[in-house]
């Protein structure tokens, strides 16, 4: 494998220079911190993504626990108002821009090339740039903690975010973050599109591509379409703040509604950017652990694409309470209701995949089932919110806080954890502990329901989101205590998984190439995969190439490498 081709040795006098292969012995993979800084290997970059986004996840989780501590009691004085508003903004921004979106890019980076039988991403150096832009975006943003963190929420609504009302630098740090992580995601998305379109193994047509790769493809297209809108909005906000323009300033002829439209034109596709790859992970995990092919492969791939398209047409359902004509309200209600149909199709297909399967109850399946059970609630509350007169009551209340967390925690985060437990053996060569993993799952699952289910009721009894304190006579204290207790349970559950990772990385059972008897090509290579991924790229004959290879090995009694690519 590690071979170099050199021109014929000089000392030989024969004029026709015949290329000659000289083997110097296997090349050592580089290690040490410098190799991580300079790497262009998609797997190392993938790991850098996963590790740094998990650090941001923990930071944002701590911010959430601080807020829950403040809200546990009525008239609490643990945090003051401005600190709380800062935490609201840091938590939301971090979770969205520095955790959910990039952690999915991390999984994509690591596994898309492996799943399609490629040796790296299409543009390895660009890939490295994407990661470093993300990290420095995060660092620039968190730099503001030492001065004035932004305090206008993750949505940074103008005019509150304008210089008249937020003169200090927190909003500028937020704009920096939007631009740096935005360029990072944009370059990453272009890289994914180029890789997926051009570098699939022989025989892997669109109809045989793994569903996770489908979801990363749609994720990438959505990023390319949606990110320019927020980049433009953030630039306009920057010039409003520092160079005297008035895009969002009524006094200067601008309009704060412009911000909301631009923001949500990005913001709603962003929701599907955060959840589609999690759908993809679920579509990979369920058939493996049900020992049954995915039910309705084409319907799932097609629903991913149609959700991607529809997600560009629903943004104003975040703005049902601004002055809007009834015709527009009706349009955005109908488009938002329609998007529930492809999402429902996915849900039914997943259920049918489990139905009459042979369900192997390992931790990745626990998280995948947790996803199904929980995301469903987020989907249903989403449909109720789409009915705009009902939204007038529920909008900007804790009902919406509950809804987004059922979608983003119950959906994305459970999907991410399913992927983590599923792919950890491939990335490290070691199995995660099943018992600790299941303990973590139950803590997270129960904690999640305790934290967020009750918030629907809080919202409906009138508690708006983003308030740092509430009076005792409002009657919200009991429900808030339940929510806070749940959130700490959830935090413990996540830490149990962190411990699991740290312990199993050194001491876990050896995984071998294919511990789950899975369907896709990443399980064909070693765990962890060598730098070049595959010595032989298998030929793909179905949507489950690894299953074909296992069957062939059993039939021919020959090793996987031999049956995968018959010499022709």
């Amino acid at each position, binding site marked *: 494998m590690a071979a170099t081709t050199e021109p014929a040795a000089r000392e030989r006098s024969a004029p026709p220079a015949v290329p000659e292969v000289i083997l110097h012995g296997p090349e050592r993979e580089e290690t040490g911190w410098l190799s991580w800084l300079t790497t262009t290997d998609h797997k190392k970059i993938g790991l850098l993504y996963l590790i740094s986004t998990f650090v941001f996840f923990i930071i944002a989780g701590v911010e959430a626990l601080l807020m829950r501590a403040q809200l546990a009691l009525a008239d609490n004085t643990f945090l003051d108002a401005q600190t709380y508003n800062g935490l*609201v903004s840091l938590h939301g921004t971090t979770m969205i821009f520095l955790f959910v979106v990039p952690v999915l890019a991390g999984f994509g980076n690591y596994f898309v090339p492996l799943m399609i039988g490629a040796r790296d991403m299409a543009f390895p150096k660009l890939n490295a740039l994407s990661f470093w832009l993300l990290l420095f975006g995060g660092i620039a943003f968190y730099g503001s903690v030492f001065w004035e963190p932004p305090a*206008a929420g993750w949505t940074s609504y103008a005019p509150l975010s304008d210089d008249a009302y937020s003169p200090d630098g927190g909003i500028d740090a937020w704009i920096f973050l939007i631009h740096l992580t935005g360029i990072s995601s944009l370059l990453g998305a272009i890289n994914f599109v180029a890789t997926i379109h051009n570098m699939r193994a022989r025989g892997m047509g669109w109809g045989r591509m793994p569903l996770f790769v489908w979801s990363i493809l749609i994720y990438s297209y959505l990023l390319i379409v949606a990110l320019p809108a927020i980049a433009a909005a953030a630039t306009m906000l920057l010039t409003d703040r520092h160079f005297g323009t008035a895009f969002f300033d009524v006094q200067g002829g601008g309009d*704060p509604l412009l911000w909301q439209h631009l923001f949500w034109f990005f913001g709603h596709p962003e929701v599907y950017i955060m959840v589609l790859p999690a759908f993809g992970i679920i579509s990979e995990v369920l058939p493996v652990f049900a020992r049954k092919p995915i039910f309705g492969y084409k319907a799932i791939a097609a629903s991913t694409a149609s959700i991607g398209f529809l997600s560009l047409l629903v943004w104003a359902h975040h703005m049902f*309470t601004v*002055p809007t004509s009834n015709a527009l309200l009706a349009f955005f209600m109908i488009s938002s209701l329609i998007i529930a149909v492809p999402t429902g199709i996915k849900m039914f297909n997943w259920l049918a995949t*489990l139905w009459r399967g042979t369900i192997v109850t390992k931790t990745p399946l626990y998280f995948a089932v947790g996803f199904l059970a929980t995301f469903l609630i987020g989907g249903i509350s989403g449909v109720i919110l789409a*009915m705009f007169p*009902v939204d007038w009551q529920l909008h900007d209340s804790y009902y919406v806080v509950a809804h987004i967390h059922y979608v983003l925690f119950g959906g994305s985060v459970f999907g991410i954890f399913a992927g983590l437990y599923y792919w950890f053996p491939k990335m490290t060569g070691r199995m995660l502990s099943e018992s600790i993993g299941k303990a973590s799952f139950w803590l997270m699952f129960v904690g999640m329901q305790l934290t967020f289910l009750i918030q629907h009721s809080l919202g409906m009894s009138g508690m708006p989101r983003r308030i*740092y304190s509430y009076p005792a006579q409002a009657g919200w204290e009991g429900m808030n205590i339940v929510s806070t207790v749940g959130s700490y349970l959830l935090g413990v559950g996540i830490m149990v998984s962190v411990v699991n990772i740290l312990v199993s990385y050194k001491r876990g059972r050896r995984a071998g190439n294919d511990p789950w008897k899975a369907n896709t090509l990443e399980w064909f290579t070693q765990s962890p995969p060598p730098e070049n991924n595959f010595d032989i790229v298998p030929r793909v004959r179905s949507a489950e190439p690894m299953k074909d290879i296992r069957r062939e090995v059993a039939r021919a009694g020959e090793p996987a490498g031999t049956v995968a690519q018959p010499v022709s």
Partner: protein
Amino acid sequence: MLRRVVTVPALIDVLAGVLAPEYGGSPNADYIWVLYWIGFGLGIAMFLLVEGVLIVSLMRDRFRRGRPDAVQVRGNTPLEVGWTLGATAIVAVLAVVTFVGLPAIVTPPASDPGGLRVADGRLYASTDQAPVEGGERPLEIGVNGQQYLWRYDYPGLRGRLFAYHEMVVPTDTTVVLSITSQDVAHSWWIPQLGGKMDALPGHVNQTWFKATEPGVFRGQCAELCGENHASMTGSVRAVPPEEFRRWVTQQTAGIRASQEALIETRRSRNTNQ
């Protein structure tokens, strides 16, 4: 026996309080409440169906040694077409129901008998009088959000009349609100009197309510508006029409007196200098 009769409705009341939005102050809030229950009911049906199928699968289809391998089903077109149509039908029902309920929620109705109406800057009882020349209007109140309080103006009435924090309105009277902001975005929300409406600088947003019973209805700003967002509360006090007339007279006189006092202070200060 009697206890059971008393507690069952009480229990239902508590459940409804937890499971549904606030209502009961104004007809539009009640209509939204009904609409919510239709959506919630269908949602619960869907929830039970999906979770039921999931639980049955997980209990029944676990891997056990000696069980034959699962049949390798890859799809079922009639079934898939079926659930696509089913899901479409559910969302279509919700859209239709919303459109049916919409006019009653967005159109301000006439005031009830016993309420008030406004014509030519004066308050009239809404029954027992002939229509007033020049046309009648509902009671109009301008709501102005400011960091961190609400100001209410009564532009339809003669004399200068405004108030802060607490809006006083007559019962059984349709009140139309014109909501705006003079600084950042706020959101007007009194849950029992209907949905919220954003207060945006440069825009006027309209909604209405009709308080059917006297009482104080509380709410607070629902859009993050800065440091003291949490303390930006607002309330509506609905009082019988007679008491409202008294309040108008008193408040107008009070405003007048304080303005005259202000003018007097300034004049005396000027003459002193």
